[in-house]
């Protein structure tokens, strides 16, 4: 072959290799255009909505309650790296708090995934029942998320469409957000099955009703103040109670050391070895002064305020709730000292119910200990984080029924079930509706002490800040708020999203 042809061969080869195709095919990535074909696609999209709530930066950690530290069931270390909790404890939070961002990020991420399911579930080739049951979970989770957002942050945009990068929705009114929540929960009730055998983590019909009852009850208070919803709250709760699906666990502490008990209505599921640890039980709730025999230590993130502890009813539930004798290692020997001993650095009682985490064969996966010795303090546990327990339905019913023409015998019966399990006597009969409501609110405070801000949201809806400030011990972190107290019922929108849209107006006072 003549060599002069060689370059032409090269040229020919190049042309044969062809012009590069410049289109993209992300072979390893699912894309919206081709997804949502099968029921399995849909199931996996629903699972994403649940999973979005589990990380540390969502609801997996104590930071999910950052804005709730203003209540009397939560306070934090006076000095350590708890600045965000401390600021809200002192009613002086700010929009730069990174822990606050978790309260914002978690529910929004869940709602985003839920909306994705709701926009696409119809496309799937499957049975109507299976599709609707998945849609029902998405409705539930979206309502659950928005309910959380609206209570913490007030007006937020209602995003029920797939947004694109140029969308700039404005903050919608609180009423509009509640409309979405109520409508979503009604859809969830319509679509969800009564139970999910073997899958206790999935939302059920009664979980949606229980949540709706609590939503209606909240709508009666600040900021909507629509007392007409008492009756609807009572009706939804009543349906759940009458279903007979749930019973109170005889021993209060057992609820916090087992998963998916008979009183669990909806909880987030965790799995440490699967990379989804629950991190609010265990080390987070344990004093800094305590350390395990293996050198592991407590984080001192959250504990009750002194007077909240001192004013607690004298009952078995209080003994199981609070941890008031610390086990300090002094010169290498575990020594029991009372919470207010000068040997403790914070001088506070702690929560006992959040220490152990999931107990298996008598050993907790959070704090592993006996009366005299702490073996280990772990920050990651497998404990389910219960968001709706049966006592909430009972107390929602008690309050709502009392405030809509009661209290009735059923009102008394509901609250007294909770009190009986707590080891308290029944409420004295003949209370006025408002006195009865006060009793229920107090009962909720202690029944749900330290749990997901239940107490704080009661403080908000009933405008209790002046009372709890008055009751606050001088030994607590000082209230440093200098602004308008009324502004403190809402947390600021995190700076992160304020910066994303300069036209958003921050909540007053921040």
């Amino acid at each position: 072959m003549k060599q002069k042809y060689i370059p032409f061969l090269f040229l020919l080869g190049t042309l044969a290799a062809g012009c590069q195709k410049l289109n993209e095919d992300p072979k390893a990535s699912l894309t919206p255009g081709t997804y949502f074909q099968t029921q399995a696609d849909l199931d996996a999209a629903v699972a994403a909505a649940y999973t979005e709530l589990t990380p540390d930066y969502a609801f997996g950690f104590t930071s999910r309650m950052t804005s709730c530290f203003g209540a009397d069931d939560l306070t934090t270390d006076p000095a350590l790296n708890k600045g965000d909790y401390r600021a809200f404890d002192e009613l002086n939070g700010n929009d730069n708090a990174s822990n606050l961002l978790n309260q914002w990020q978690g529910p929004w991420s869940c709602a985003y995934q839920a909306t994705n399911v709701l926009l696409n579930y119809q496309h799937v080739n499957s049975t109507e029942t299976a599709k609707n049951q998945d849609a029902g979970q998405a409705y539930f989770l979206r309502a659950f998320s928005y309910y959380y957002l609206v209570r913490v942050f007030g007006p937020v945009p209602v995003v029920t469409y797939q947004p694109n990068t140029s969308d700039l929705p404005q903050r919608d009114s609180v009423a509009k957000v509640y409309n979405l929540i109520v409508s979503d929960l009604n859809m969830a009730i319509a679509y969800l099955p009564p139970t999910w055998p073997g899958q206790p983590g999935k939302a059920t019909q009664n979980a949606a009703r229980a949540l709706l009852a609590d939503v209606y009850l909240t709508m009666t208070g600040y900021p909507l103040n629509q007392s007409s919803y008492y009756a609807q709250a009572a009706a939804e709760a009543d349906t759940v109670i009458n279903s007979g699906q749930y019973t109170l666990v005889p021993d209060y502490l057992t609820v916090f050391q087992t998963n998916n008990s008979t009183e669990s209505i909806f909880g987030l599921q965790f799995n440490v070895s699967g990379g989804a640890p629950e991190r609010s039980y265990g080390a987070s709730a344990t004093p800094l002064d305590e350390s395990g025999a293996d050198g592991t230590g407590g984080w001192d993130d959250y504990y009750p305020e002194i007077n909240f502890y001192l004013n607690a009813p004298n009952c078995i539930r209080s003994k199981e709730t609070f941890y008031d004798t610390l086990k300090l290692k002094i010169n290498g020997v575990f020594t029991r000292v009372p919470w207010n001993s000068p040997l403790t650095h914070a001088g506070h009682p702690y929560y006992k119910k959040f220490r152990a985490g999931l107990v298996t064969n008598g050993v907790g996966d959070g704090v592993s200990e006996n009366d005299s010795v702490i073996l280990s303090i772990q920050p990651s546990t497998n404990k389910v984080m219960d968001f709706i327990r049966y006592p909430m339905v009972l107390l929602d019913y008690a309050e709502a029924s009392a405030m809509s023409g009661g209290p009735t015998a059923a009102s008394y019966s509901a609250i007294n079930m909770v009190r009986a399990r707590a080891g308290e006597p029944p409420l004295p009969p003949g209370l006025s509706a408002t006195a009865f409501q006060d009793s229920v609110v107090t009962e909720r405070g202690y029944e749900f002490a330290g749990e997901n801000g239940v107490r704080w949201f009661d403080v908000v809806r009933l405008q209790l800040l002046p009372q709890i400030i008055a009751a606050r011990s001088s030994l607590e972190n000082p209230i440093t708020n200098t602004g308008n107290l009324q502004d403190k019922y809402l947390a600021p929108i995190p700076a992160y999203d304020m910066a994303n849209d300069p036209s958003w107006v921050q909540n007053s006072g921040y």
Partner: protein
Amino acid sequence: MKRLLLQLLLLAFGISVAYAQQEPIRGKVLDPNGHPVPGATVSLKNSRITTTTDAEGNFQIQPGKSKTPVLIVTSVGYEESDVNVTSGGSISVNMKPVSKSMNDVVVIGYGTQRKVTLTGATASVGATEIAKRPIVRVEEALQGTAPGVAVESTSGMPGTPLAVRIRGTNSLTGSNEPLYVIDGFIGGNIESVPASDIESLEILKDAAATAIYGSRGSNGVVMITTKSGRSGKARIDFNFWEQNNQIPKELSLMNALQFATVVNQQDAELGQAPGFTQAQLDGFQTNPGTNWQKALQRKPWVNDYNLTISGGTEWVNYLFSLDHLDQPGMILNQYYRRTTFRSNVGIKVNDRMNLQFNVAAVIPESRNNGYQGDITDPFAQAYQWDPTSPIKDSNGNYIMRSAFASNGTNPVAQANNSLNDANSTDITGTGRLTYRLLKGLTFTSDNYYEINNNQQLTLNGPLTSAGLVGEDYAATNNGKSWNFQNSNFLTYHGNWSGHSLTLTAVYEQTNGEASNTNARSNNLSTYALGYYNLGLGATQIISSGYSSSSTQSYVGRLSYSYKDRYLLSASIRDDGSSHLVKKYSTFPSVGLGWNIAREKWLENSRFISTLKVRGSWGIAGNQAVPAYSSIPTIGVGGIENAAAYYYDGKTPSVYTPLGSPVSTTLKWEDDEQVDGGIDAGFWGDRVTLSLDVYHKHVSNLLYNLPTPYWAGGGNHEANIGNLENQGIEFGIGATPVQIHKFKWNLYYNMSFNTNKVLSLSGLDNIIVNNIGSAQTGVSILKVGKPVGEFYGYDFLGTWKTSEAAAAAKYNNKPGDSRYLDVNNDGSITGSDEVPIGNGLPKYTFGLSNDLSYGDWNLSFLFQGTHGNQIYSGTFPYMFGDQGDARNATTTEILNTWTPTNQTNIPTVSPSSQNYINSSRWVYNASYIKLRNINLTYHVPDHFVSRAKIRSLEFYVSGQNLWTITKYPGYDPEVSNQTNGITQGLETGMIPNPRTYTFGVRLGL
């Protein structure tokens, strides 16, 4: 002119010229140091007679029929030498090395060009320059040697790339590293090129030079040309160096007694029980406790071996090189090892056709050299850890935690037990055909194929921070990729009556694929098998990925000159890429030059030997959009570490989260640059000056904009704004002394650059979520300010006793931190945060000196920066204020404010905010370093030639022996920068070593 030059040459180098009729002409070819040049080609002008010199540089050649024979002597690395043979006897030809001469040919994109006709701003670093110091990575060779090129060694970890900035920071989150082109392979792997393989480095700075690389050229281009064999007998070169590395500085930390005393004082201030008993304090009187810095650090020996065999004939040249580097880190259980192999073979098939086949392979292997600089790294834990805690207990078990230490883990245990091992094999094959189609018209086809296999093995067993919280795991990631480049170009070159024209047309295509498989196993039942059997884990998580990219480009270029006086070049490149929705973008450039010194009225000047003015304009791009950025995707897993959702707490269910929305209008960053320059030489270029002024305007800045959480959170790529860089840079070279055997060369360069953000899609500023756990929200992008301004409160020291009343307004008391209340609203809130500094230098400079006396050579290089600052994440933790550090460790805490000693070091009190982002942690990081000093002895050839040794050199050198800086941390040069914004942020980075080297270069 030519004759004059020739005479000057003859004069300067004292060529004695011989003439002999019919007798063979004998002679010897020597370099300027008097060493023989083997393998040089000697040919008789106007004939086909040619020969090459032997190992001693000797040649003999038939003179032919001419009465005035002229010999043409050529050799790679030297200028062509024409010798008039006028007398008999042996002649000696002194070759002048290719240097700063205007006759140099330099490598440009898709070809070469005579330097005299260049219109762009470029700089060169040659092999002799590179050989002056022991170099581990290519980037080091650029450090301090060229104006406009700032090279920072941002970490002293073995095997870490250096940060190279050509003319400032051009991109926010995209790469700011220059484009490396290795023998024409765009984006080649520079890890595969050991310093001794490099023939030359060309640095292309302005758009006239870089626009030829279109969408990849905006950060400047570094063209690496590797060596090739010279015709002649095989040459064997063996180089070896051994080096001791040391961390140059120890931070001043408290001993056990001081530490315990301070802990007790602070407990007292906070109303808490003392942490240490009197008995413990008494014990610390005699026991200083653990020095964690010493416990973690090592002074390792680093060595490098290089063997090169090269040679060739008229038809074939070859070069094989093998290099092995072994570089242990300066902390426990850390290393980087690298083996490279190169084979460069050139074949001259006939007068028309040349072929080149190169193979380059690199096999790097590393352990624990991926620390990004975080407060949880062992190196950072070492300066935060409790000095009262021993490393191990009396049973020999690690004491993993201490109630008084940081929340982390015993740094010695962590360093020893946590493994992050990586290895890879990367092979690049090059095939090049050049074919002369017609006179002046050449076709070239360059083909490159690179394959890479890599593996990452991770083990975090029981005695690691992950293990302590029950999150122990082992993981294996395997990746594979290939890249292909095919460049075909036609080059026409023509000369007629003073006009010179070169036309180049290129068609280029690239494509590549990458895939990976990741397996992770949690809570292994035993760690006896390390990371080798992931089947032992309770939970196993698997994922995999794939991506592919392709580009297609068309390039045209015209270079024209008239009598080398008037120069014009213009190029245009149309780049198509798979990453964008709108595929094609166009990048033009124009350059003009005037060689004033070549004008008649100046060409005889004795004073001015070179004078050229240049000007250029052009646009280059930054390809900072990753593949698939415009396609919304649905993830598989990926929410934190969750492998699945567990509806019963046990059984995993796969989940597929929808990603955030993406922009479909993405464009490359466009960098429009104007450059004006002057090159001058005086007294026969004994003094040279090169000066450039430039302005760069970068538009379509890409930023990974935060996506609102209501839209899914995370980030999305968007084109958000503009920035500019403008600057002046110059280099001055001189040979102040040249007497007999003594010669002194010096070179000084200096670069000023100012950077400014011009717009951010309507926003005034963007606060950046930073890197590492110690630094969040420390940076801000602000219109009118440079990129990556530090952001925080303005620290004013402490409240003094006399200011108690004012302090009380802020809920503070004397001794507390005091910050500027910018808006004067009586409280310190987020709105009081302001820009408080910047990591960008105002100018950088380098001064190199080269002194040779006979067989001795001493060279040293000073290099420095001025006007840059560091935001330290290290110091707040050493003050133990808050965060995860529990107690102060620095001795500076001993000087804390007291009523009787009112210093500016605040007390630890509940009312004092000591740890917030503030100017307290911003330090002046200007420095001057004696980067390198080197003394070489060339053993006289007559000593070694009997042992058949061609040349033998010994050298000793030191790097970073001396630093002038006000920065109180380890090293003002290190930072955790991951992009243009985070420059100057520092937390727990390992400093650059001080090194002492001994080396040998042996040639056979």
